[in-house]
């Protein structure tokens, strides 16, 4: 049985530089991609600096996460996840759970509550009668792409879908939240996805919508349905469920985060 697929070598590097040494640094990382019907992770390693013992767990949404603590003083915290992925261009990500179990993806979450802007937008562009859920979602992603301008720095990690839509500007997180909010208003289960795209840069966020028994990736930021160049890391109701690095530590000073994601075609 032959299946269309592509092989990638990926590395996701995240570094925190502290201006003053910190200690008792506890962290939880959601940056390890998992195998599913669409993607096979054939190799994966996690490297930490300073080195530290890790506990691995699966959260309520099925994401793998690792956590640990660096008790001693340190100025740099660096994580590097490297591996190989084989992504299919045809396989569907099944969604055969009873509708009730999809409830967290059907109702508004913290970032996706509808205010007047979303309601007006939904009124104007909402799902038409006889329009299939998948078709509607594709139309919606193009519509959002058209109406939004990709601008960095105007929104931040606290910006909700409603606020981003009101300002008509934002980044991938905002595009995804807007799309999720609108899908849920139409009763279509949808979830926030964090992952990587072929090339070099930052991590990316997009949307998965459930239609006809499968999850379909939609990327309103890039005006397209996802294909085999997308490697998924985690999913949840919205940004907060997928935060890549959560941490607390003791110490003064400030932290600077640098992220470098690289995905190269392998053969």
């Amino acid at each position, binding site marked *: 049985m032959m299946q269309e697929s592509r092989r990638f070598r990926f590395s996701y590097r995240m570094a925190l530089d502290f201006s003053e040494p910190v200690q008792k640094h506890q962290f939880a990382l959601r940056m390890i991609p998992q195998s599913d019907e669409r993607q096979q992770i054939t190799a994966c390693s996690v490297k930490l600096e300073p080195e530290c013992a890790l506990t691995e*767990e699966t959260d*309520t949404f099925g994401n793998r996460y690792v956590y640990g*603590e660096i008790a001693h003083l340190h100025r740099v915290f660096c994580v590097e996840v490297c591996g190989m992925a084989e992504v299919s261009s045809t396989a569907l990500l099944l969604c055969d759970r009873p509708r*009730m179990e999809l409830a967290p993806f059907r109702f*508004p979450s913290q970032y996706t509550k509808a205010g007047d802007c979303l309601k007006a937008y939904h009124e104007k562009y909402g799902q038409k009668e006889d329009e299939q859920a998948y078709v509607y979602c594709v139309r919606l992603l193009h519509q959002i792409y058209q109406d939004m301008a990709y601008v960095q720095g105007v929104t931040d990690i606290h910006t909700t879908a409603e606020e981003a839509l009101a300002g008509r500007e934002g980044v991938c997180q905002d595009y995804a939240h807007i799309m999720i909010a609108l899908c849920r208003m139409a009763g279509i289960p949808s979830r926030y996805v964090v992952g990587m795209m072929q090339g070099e840069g930052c991590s990316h966020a997009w949307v998965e919508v459930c239609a006809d028994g499968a999850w379909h990736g939609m990327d309103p930021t890039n005006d397209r349905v996802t294909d085999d160049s997308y490697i998924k890391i985690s999913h949840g*109701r919205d940004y907060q469920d997928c935060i890549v690095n959560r941490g*607390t530590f003791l110490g003064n000073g400030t932290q600077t985060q640098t992220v470098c994601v690289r995905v190269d075609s392998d053969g």
Partner: protein
Amino acid sequence: MYEMDLLDNTEDVNRLLARYGVKFGIYKNNTFKEQLFPFDAIPRVIQKEEFDYLERGLKQRVMALNIFLDDIYHDKKIVRDQVIPEDFIFASSGYMPACEGVTPVKKIYAHISGIDLVKGKDGEWYILEDNLRVPSGASYPMIARELCRRSSPKTFRDNQLEDNRNYAQLLRRAMDTVNVEGHTVILTPGRYNAAYFEHSYLAEKTGAHLVNGSELTVENDRLFYVDYKGKKERVGAVYRRISDEYLDPMHFNPESVIGIPHIFDAYRKGNVALLNAPGNGIADDKGIYYFVPKMIRYYLGEEPVLSNAPTYLPFYEEDMAYVLAHFDSLVLKDVAEAGGYGVVFGSSMTKAQKADFIALLQREPRRFIAQEVIDFQDLEIQDAGSVVERKADLRAFVLMADEPQVWKSGLTRFSRNPDSFIVNSSQGGGFKDTWVLSH
């Protein structure tokens, strides 16, 4: 039934309460204000038979709510069987997906419940709301009783009433019942919390450690108390008032500085008990309140002993029609608010306010419940030397050990404003001791 010195010494008792720190801290317009919680010495007296009846109803209610929580985070039978529409569960901010499939020690979710009741002029008791996220208030009648016994010893010699100083034992039992191994601690966000007096008082009375978040740490999915020398000792149960959202920055609000990183991991692996359980917000949601009598019939197969105040859900079309037709005689409550906020009376709105509100109600029917205004009994209170009548409610406390136990007392709160029905302490009311006669 009381000696006059009980009333005459009210001022002294209040002075002592202030010195002990019986205060209520409230945030208003972003500033923190501490105010005294004025005590009125005329007790609310409840006859034994009447309290026995309340006790039966309260136990039944808390049992049903506890089963409901277990059902919601596991099988969801009550939703599948369409007793409760799914919107009321999953669109509620109290529902926490992180608690899905997590079973707390001994399946106890509602370790401490505060059930608010009022007695109508018709002599019937009505439930106004359930509080299942560690309700505060028990410490006030406890300390007031202690001081009054000193201010008027004869009163307490002559009257046969239930001693309410056993709250500490009931609480201790509730905590010990679920303690996994090690210490029991009372976790407080600190002295700027509205309930700081209560935390310190209950810690003293139960013998639990009073700790703040920085004194607790999680290692290998176990919770430890770190003492001043850095020595770590295992903690098996945590009484906490920190809301779920701030409990663990690794799972919930990532910016919480009062939470304990990874405490939720320890909890979901069964290595520590949290009182009350995370996720309880779904059970004391004002929208869910409407369904509690249905819940009692559904889970226990019994008729509810205690009634709700007559409540309408504008979510249902026929209820909406009723609400619109009887708007002026109803009180409307925003299901997302607590502490007496988000409560409006139809009769007190201007025409314009009413039109705006009805428009909002029609846009977001799920957000509100409407209730008949219960004409509840007034209680006597002292006011500048004379006795006047004011509205009052009762917060009864139910503690769950292996089975529910009702504390034979309660917090009676009254409104000092003669025209107000809102008795919440955060709205400036006062309190009374609640006497339950022992025969």
